[in-house]
């Protein structure tokens, strides 16, 4: 009786999981399949490629535009991560450890910034960047990425810093450390998981962003992969560049998937830190 019920429950759970996984994975599988089809087979209405071919990958990597975009993506996302984490760490540290007027206001304000819809500032930013000479440059993208990920970094890091006993830092000060040494040699190593999670979250934001990338760049100077993909052209004007787009998408998705799989524990810990253990 109970075992029959248990089996039915397991079956339902299993079916549900399969359904959700399919729902999530079918588009990705479709993308992968497209990227592996020959150009001529793209419209063949088949789920699996008839002949596996790497011609689109070859084409994508031969395209100097894509190579430049990939370099831009790696560089801009990496630098944005650094640019957001350094002030984020110091700000989180101050918010957690120091008693100063406006502390709560500051936290609330960071949250407010995080809720600000990026699309509402893209227009003015475009004009501003043109007149400041930041349009189509790395700093032109790093700055908005840093701004929009800083709240995330501050919140994640402060959740982690809050859990580190203050007495450790006091002990370091008495042991002869400067405030900076205490932060770097005692607090930072203990907050490493938090720094990791924050770094991954910031990196993913910058890596995946399309809106700023498409609006604030115009050439290979600073165009990142998501934007570059939108500018792919077919080999003739009558041919859709579907295969190349698919191949390029797979190429940029792969590192993200790898990073998330490798660090998923950390990310989850980062997102929930401070939620349970107060």
């Amino acid at each position, binding site marked *: 009786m109970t075992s029959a019920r248990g089996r039915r429950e397991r079956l339902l759970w299993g079916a549900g999981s399969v359904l959700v996984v399919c729902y999530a994975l079918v588009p990705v599988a479709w993308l992968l399949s497209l990227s592996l089809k020959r150009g001529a087979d793209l419209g063949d209405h088949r789920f699996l490629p008839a002949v596996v071919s790497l011609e689109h990958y070859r084409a994508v990597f031969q395209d100097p535009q894509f190579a430049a975009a990939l370099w831009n993506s790696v560089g801009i996302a990496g630098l944005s991560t650094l640019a957001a984490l350094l002030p984020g760490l110091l700000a989180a540290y101050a918010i957690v450890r120091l008693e100063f007027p406006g502390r709560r206001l500051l936290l609330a304000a960071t949250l407010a910034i995080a809720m600000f819809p990026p699309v509402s500032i893209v227009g003015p930013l475009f004009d501003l960047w043109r007149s400041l000479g930041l349009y189509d440059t790395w700093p032109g993208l790093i700055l908005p990425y840093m701004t929009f990920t800083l709240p995330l970094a501050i919140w994640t890091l402060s959740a982690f810093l809050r859990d580190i006993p203050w007495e450790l830092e006091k002990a370091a000060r008495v042991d002869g450390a400067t405030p900076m040494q205490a932060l770097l*040699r005692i607090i930072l190593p203990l907050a490493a998981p938090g720094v990791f999670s924050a770094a991954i979250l910031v990196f993913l934001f910058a890596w995946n962003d399309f809106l700023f990338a498409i609006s604030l760049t115009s050439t290979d100077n600073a165009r990142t992969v998501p934007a570059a993909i939108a500018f792919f052209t077919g080999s003739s004007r009558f041919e859709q560049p579907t295969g190349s787009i698919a191949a390029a998408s797979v190429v940029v998705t792969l590192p993200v998937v790898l990073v998330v799989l490798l660090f998923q524990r950390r990310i989850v810990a980062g997102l929930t830190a401070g939620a349970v253990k107060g």
Partner: protein
Amino acid sequence: MAAIELREVSRQFGATRAVDCVNLSIDDGEFFILVGPSGCGKSTLLNMIVGLETLSSGEILVDGERVDELDPRDRDMAMVFQSYAIYPHMSVRENLAFPLRLARLPAADIDERVLRAARMLELEALLERRPAALSGGQRQRVAMGRALVREPRVFLLDEPLSNLDARLRVQMRAQIARLQRRLGTTTVYVTHDQTEAMTLGQRIAVMRRGKLVQTGTPQQLYARPADLFVAGFIGSPAMNFLPSRLAGERLELPVGSLALPERLRGAAAGAAGPLVAGFRPEDLRLAASGETTGLCFDARADIVEWLGADLFVYFDVALDGFGPLELPADLDIQTGDATRRSLVARIDPDAGVKAGDRFRLCLDPQRLHLFAGGRAIGDPAGLQR
């Protein structure tokens, strides 16, 4: 080596006055205890000495030089925290070496000093362990070791034993006392446990609500408490208190009356406010048959605690005709209620008193403490033992 002097040191936190105008001098090489109930400002005072907390006013001098403006690392003091504050990501060896690394000592020196401290505290076998793999007592020793390696001018310890179980605490207490005597370093030790204070310190300062109430040797505090608070705080079980009033040259208590000794007479006559009589459990003794010297009265044993060498008998006294007794609320003494008070006597275990038994006790008037308006009055000289 260093002598510490605190001059009118105060610390304000918003509306709370955590430390209120403390004057104190601690001699070179002294083992000095700061004791008081929770929240009285002991940690705040210690943190101000070491430089983790700023002063609202006043000054701190070490060997005659002002240090209260100095950064903690320029004060050459080491501190042991209640939570030990061992760095969890470093091995025991790295923990001990940390202060020396910061001081940029040569590597060979560091190794040697770490080894010496480890040997002193029997940590040699644990040097490569992480703090997570240590027991509470071992962590405590690592924290001590990290203070020792620097050979500082001053040791500051903030309730270093309060996270240990009772047995280990007694063991570590003895070890700390031995270490301090061997090194001769000026030590300030904070505790809220009066037993620890009495057993460890050369001198004790009792704090209450941010103020220093009384400073002295354990014997002085025990024999001549300056006020009701110190009288009730020092000693275990606590001193017995009863309301009392003057009738000519005699003092009336709920259990009877006694002739006031000379040393108390003048002060009692001039005292303002209600009088409180105090006497320690050991100042009561079983009456010999037919004895009438001093104040003798009958009691019924309520609870009997036998501790091997001692027998503590708790009994109730009715306060008929006397007002209720006002004691400092932060003393946490079990007071009974407005009409009854529970007292305790320490008597000879061989007397064989059991719960429910009736027995007769006598109080030697020479042992009596008298308080008016919370302060001790009269000449306590007769109390020296």
